[in-house]
């Protein structure tokens, strides 16, 4: 009797969302998996040819796809580190006793309000025009030149722009975590004579472990999926040196009209990312438990 009742409540609380979620996300995703076994250009009136696993097999000899995978991994590693360090630093800064903290929060958070496409164009101005101007003015042409023309620096530029955009976003989540730390815990530590760094590492970090898990996951998934900034800042160039996963897939589907093949790439991409993030989440979760 009681069990039945619990099941009823369970369904009542979860089913509405699951219903919508399935219709909007899960079913299209399953349909998408189905399409990955066809050679098709995405137009319903044009022929769909069943090719079995051919799309998947071809994918592994697609050197450009593999290279883009490499770029994405490299980009993601650097971006995650930088975004989280900066986001956390910002969060600590604006939760301190500063008088300007509210203004600072709003300012730091503003970049995320600008859509990725426009943002890429703006930064393009900076890396081309502003950098050249600075380089000429200071004579430091070794540092201040058009970064977007150099394969390595273009990737760094992408990391910087993504960091600039995402740090404020991640900051919000860290703020929520830091705000959740009870005052008395910190005070007690300070009474015990803990310094700034000690409080930070011994008290604050362990208590915001759940925020770490969340932030790492969000940055990981966002960085792996990076598209808008990639398109508008570097367009994948110079000579494909910054073409990421999502852009490669997008090109396959919408520029080259290989919808089925593009879907296959997307599925593989999804599996890879899913495995990586699951590992990440389980590791940090474990840490969470240990730290507490």
């Amino acid at each position: 009797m009681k069990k039945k009742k619990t099941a009823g409540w369970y369904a009542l609380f979860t089913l509405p969302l699951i219903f919508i979620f399935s219709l909007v996300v899960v079913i299209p995703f399953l349909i998408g998996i189905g399409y990955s076994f066809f050679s098709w250009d995405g137009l319903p009136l044009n022929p769909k040819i069943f090719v079995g696993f051919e799309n998947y097999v071809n994918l592994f000899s697609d050197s450009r796809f593999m290279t883009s995978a490499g770029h994405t991994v490299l980009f993601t590693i650097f971006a995650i580190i930088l975004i989280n360090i900066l986001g956390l630093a910002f969060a600590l800064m604006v939760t301190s006793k500063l008088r300007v903290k509210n203004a600072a929060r709003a300012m730091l958070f503003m970049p995320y309000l600008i859509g990725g496409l426009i943002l890429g164009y703006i930064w393009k101005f900076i890396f081309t025009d502003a950098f050249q101007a600075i380089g000429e003015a200071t004579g430091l042409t070794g540092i201040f030149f058009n970064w977007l023309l150099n394969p390595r620096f273009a990737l760094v530029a992408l990391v910087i722009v993504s960091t600039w955009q995402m740090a404020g976003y991640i900051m919000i989540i860290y703020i929520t975590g830091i705000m959740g730390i009870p005052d008395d815990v910190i005070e007690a530590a300070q009474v015990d004579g803990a310094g700034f760094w000690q409080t930070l590492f011994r008290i604050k970090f362990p208590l915001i472990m759940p925020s770490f898990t969340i932030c790492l996951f969000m940055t990981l998934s966002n960085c792996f999926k990076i598209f808008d900034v990639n398109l508008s800042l570097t367009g994948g160039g110079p000579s494909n040196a910054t073409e990421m996963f999502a852009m490669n897939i997008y090109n396959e589907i919408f520029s080259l009209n290989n919808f089925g093949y593009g879907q296959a790439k997307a599925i593989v991409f999804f599996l890879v990312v899913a495995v990586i993030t699951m590992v990440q989440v389980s590791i940090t979760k474990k840490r969470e438990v240990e730290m507490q």
Partner: protein
Amino acid sequence: MKLKKVTSVLLAAAMTASMVLAGCGNSSSGETKKAEDKTEAAKETEAPKADKVETEAAKTQSGDDVESAKKIILFQSKVEIIDQLEELAEAYEDETGVEVEVWGTTGDDYFQQLKTKLANNQGPTVFSLAPGAESVQMTSYLADLSDISFADKIAEGMGNEIDGKLVGIPYTAEGFGLVYNKSLYDPSKVTDTDSLIKYLEEQKAADINGLGLSSESYFLIGHILNTPFALQENPVEFVQKLGAGEVKMADTPEFQEFAKLYAAIRDNCVNPLEQTYDKEIGDFATGKSATIHQGNWAAGMFADYEMDFEMGLAPLPLAGNDKLAVSVPTAWYVNSQATPEEQKAGKEFLEWLYTSETGTDYLMNKFGFIPVVDGMENENMDVLSQDVSKYIADGKTITWPMNEWPAGSVDVYLVPVAQEFFTTDMTPEDFLAKLDEAWAQASK
């Protein structure tokens, strides 16, 4: 303070919403949602989703005119004319009573949007495409327009025909080549690749950018690479042979000259990768560049500048070429998947656009198009379009085989090669070899 109110209202609403959910039990939660969607739709009276409703309305309203719908939907890629197009839609409704709704999207993702909309039967009645590879891919969505009254008046080769049927009505003609500063460049003296290269060297010595390109895909390589293709005896066949691997760019003289020219641009001109379209135009308008490889579409970009020289449009003298590359960038198509009533209304709209006084006035004077249908004239064209017109009248034009290139080849395959060329010391020979390689991949 206000927010507190808002939040409390939100929370109250949230509570009621979940009460409703609770009241209906979980199984009916879907229905709650449906009901809500219905009311939402009822509110949106203008929702054009109702293809069927529309046509039914048309049927009931005017019993004698069951044939054509009272509303058509227009979706097109040229955002520059969108304001005028909306005016035109109003004018059309005033004259004929048929409503024209203009959908909007950015120029960049138009094709992707169109495909997605056609894929779920949400398609517009009349839409635009680039004739060539793009329209061929969409063949099954293109209605036969052969019976349109002005079909035989469309200038030679400008209408888009697929399998002998006219499917696309051209917007305008566009031409590209060298937009040049008349006080710095004399087309009669620069007539082939060698003299052009020599000219670039001289300009470099005079601290002027001889030939400007910019980093956007077509402005970097798409348009300029069109010329060696167009100079082949049969350009379309050449594209096919190249795709099949029967010929190579590396073995074709026009392409060898092209690579030589490209290298001269790298050596003597501003690096195109450092330029954007805006900067390219600005450099030209302020006299820093003597020529830029552009077309008559750029005329509008000069509106903001006070220029103290005259400009013109001349052929790119590659391999002695003395013709402008002229073709139709965009054409109108009618959606063959729309209801017969809508298709009829769509055709009537095109008919009106190209034959009525108001319609042609818009095409010529408001859109600033170059006439492509006999009997139309445009007296206030900008200087660049005038030059294009002149070359058309003299029959000195070459085609745009680039419209036959494999879909997406410029952005996905050719641009990376060009970028590599402009950032390294790649030789012209290596450059051609790499282009051939990229082409083979694009044609797979």
